[in-house]
């Protein structure tokens, strides 16, 4: 970003670039990005609609890859506890309460007791049921799932102080504080899957699809027996998607060629290594509808079995009734907002304060961050 800033100031930007998600609307609002709405023609397979970054209704970027948030679990730990595996499709998704009940059966103190047993010792837990990633951008899933969100659907307003948003966030904190089924996690790092199911500290963990390629494929080679599932839900079934954006800069003298190049460059064939290894998901719609393409993409040892992956990941990712774009696709200043939110929630995770208290007392600062002040 620093390099792009310097180049922008000097008027020496390249024609196109892949940039950070949270930078897109900031750059668009300063008039630096070209409208690429017409990049894909009428007969062509377009990227999934959830992958278009929009500023004032115009598409200013498409993600070069797709990612959705999902659930992973350690099958061995489920088998040991004799618990049924998490569901693969949205129809069977667990409610939040069901999720907590399962997590309780998978949580053990050093005497082997679960939170359901008398004499359970929450100070000496050796295995937790779940780890729900609470990085601010991923945490929004739960505010939305509980009927709220950080922002209104059109991105024009901050709604994180609504009771349902606050309650959704508090429910995530309560996994550790009240139910003792999750370890303390302060939303500072992006390694929930390594810390949980790979390290065998937790039986379930939430995280992005990329984990299949970045860490689970190699862990599987070393003997990890893992499975995938859809996220549980509070009131609404929802997951978030994201992916690094490709943009065309307004300074370009070759807008048409730049769009043409970007379209070619974003083709799945050109980043096949990342797709095949399970890190990136394709962006063009056809990969989510054409069974031959799906098999080409998924049928290799890096992935879970084809049927499971198709049901759980592919079906979910193309279903716009549950997959929502992460907020940086349509809201500016998400970096500032998320940094501030992370800071505000620090004492919520440890129980020193509540989500309600933390958010209502800082709502003006959050709104100022949203406005970019």
């Amino acid at each position: 970003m620093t390099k792009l800033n310097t180049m922008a100031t000097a008027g020496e930007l390249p024609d196109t670039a892949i940039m950070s998600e949270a930078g897109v609307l900031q750059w668009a609002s300063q008039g630096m990005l070209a409208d690429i709405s017409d990049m894909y023609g009428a007969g062509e397979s377009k990227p999934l609609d959830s992958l278009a970054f929009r500023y004032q209704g115009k598409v200013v970027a498409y993600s070069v890859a797709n990612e959705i948030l999902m659930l992973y679990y350690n099958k061995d730990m489920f088998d040991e506890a004799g618990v049924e595996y998490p569901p693969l499709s949205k129809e069977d998704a667990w409610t939040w309460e069901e999720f907590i009940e399962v997590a309780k059966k998978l949580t053990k103190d050093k005497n082997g007791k679960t939170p359901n047993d008398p004499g359970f010792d929450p100070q000496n837990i050796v295995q937790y049921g779940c780890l729900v990633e609470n990085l601010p951008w991923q945490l929004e899933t739960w505010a939305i799932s509980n009927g709220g969100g950080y922002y209104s659907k059109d991105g024009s307003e901050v709604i994180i102080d609504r009771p349902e948003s606050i309650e959704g966030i508090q429910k995530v904190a309560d996994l550790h504080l009240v139910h003792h089924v999750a370890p303390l996690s302060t939303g500072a790092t992006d390694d929930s899957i390594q810390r949980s199911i790979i390290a065998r500290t937790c039986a379930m963990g939430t995280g992005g699809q990329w984990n299949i390629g970045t860490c689970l494929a190699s862990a599987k080679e070393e003997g990890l027996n893992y499975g995938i599932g859809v996220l549980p839900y509070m009131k609404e079934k929802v997951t978030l998607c994201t992916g690094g954006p490709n943009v065309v800069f307004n300074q370009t003298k070759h807008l048409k060629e730049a769009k043409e190049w970007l379209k070619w460059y974003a083709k799945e064939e050109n980043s096949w290594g990342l797709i095949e290894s399970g890190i990136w998901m394709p962006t063009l719609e056809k990969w989510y509808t054409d069974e031959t393409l799906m098999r080409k993409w998924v049928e290799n040892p890096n992935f879970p079995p084809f049927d499971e992956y198709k049901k759980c990941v592919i079906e979910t990712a193309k279903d716009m009734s549950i997959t929502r774009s992460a907020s940086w696709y349509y809201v500016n200043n998400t970096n500032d907002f998320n940094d501030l939110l992370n800071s505000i929630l620090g004492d919520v995770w440890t129980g020193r304060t509540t989500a309600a208290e933390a958010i209502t007392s800082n709502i003006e600062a959050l709104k100022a961050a949203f406005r970019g002040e």
Partner: protein
Amino acid sequence: MNKTVRKKPRYSLMARKESITAYLCLIPAFIGLTFITYLPLAGVFGIGFFNWKGLSAPVFIGFRNYIRLFTTDPYFIDSIKVTVYFAVLAVFGSMIYSFYIAMLLNREIPARGFWRAVFYLPYILPAAAVYIGWSWLYESNFGLFNYFLSELGINKIKFLSDSLYVVPSLALIAVWTSGNLIVIFLAGLQNVSRVYYEAALIDGANAFQRFFRITVPCMTPIIFYNLLMSLITNMQVVVPALALTDGGPGNASMFMTYLMYRYAFKNNHLGYACAISFVFFVIIAIFTAILFATSKTWIFYEGDSK
């Protein structure tokens, strides 16, 4: 009369020649200081008056950045508090620890060279590796320290995740890595003349008296130097926030340098970050000035006539 008139230009000619040589020799340092220290400092001061987000042209906004810092900024006041809190703990902790270890290492102990290396080692280890290593010890759920605590039947402590404990926990790491102070203390201790101790022994002074009446006074110049260096280093603390805490939980480890870095390079508020860094400069300058001003009252120089 004539003689004196003639003499004056001769001396000043020599002096002038010498001063020319001196200035020539100073040029490299002067260039370095000007371009790497003073001009950037002036630049930072200047940019602090602009709203500059890196992309569009900077807009002059007077003192608005500074006003926002002290009124609506959600991090800044906390950031000053935690930085000073950390610096006080880390400076006093590492001074006492280093002085004590230096005293031990100054004795006739077996394998003295080995022990000196052991205590110096943490200082030269890569900082990021040190902090990641400590983070495993400190880990709230399964860390080694908490394992020992639970074996002893004590409730777990959330060393880095609890706003109450995070700064003391990080200060402890800073104390552990203060090997450079030990070396300087050690050199100082070896310069304290044996004569005083012998005289004190003959007069029947006990170990405490010898320590407080001889060692400490003779060491005050070294103590001052270490205090100053340690203060500046610890005020500029940034690695633990970068490597471990992201400034959290809450603002509990939002050190000023980290806040400045985050505004400037993560969120593109360059003008604003410059204002922070200027305030930060002023704060360190104030602390240094206080230290210098009080130093005359407690430093003892052997060669001093007073």
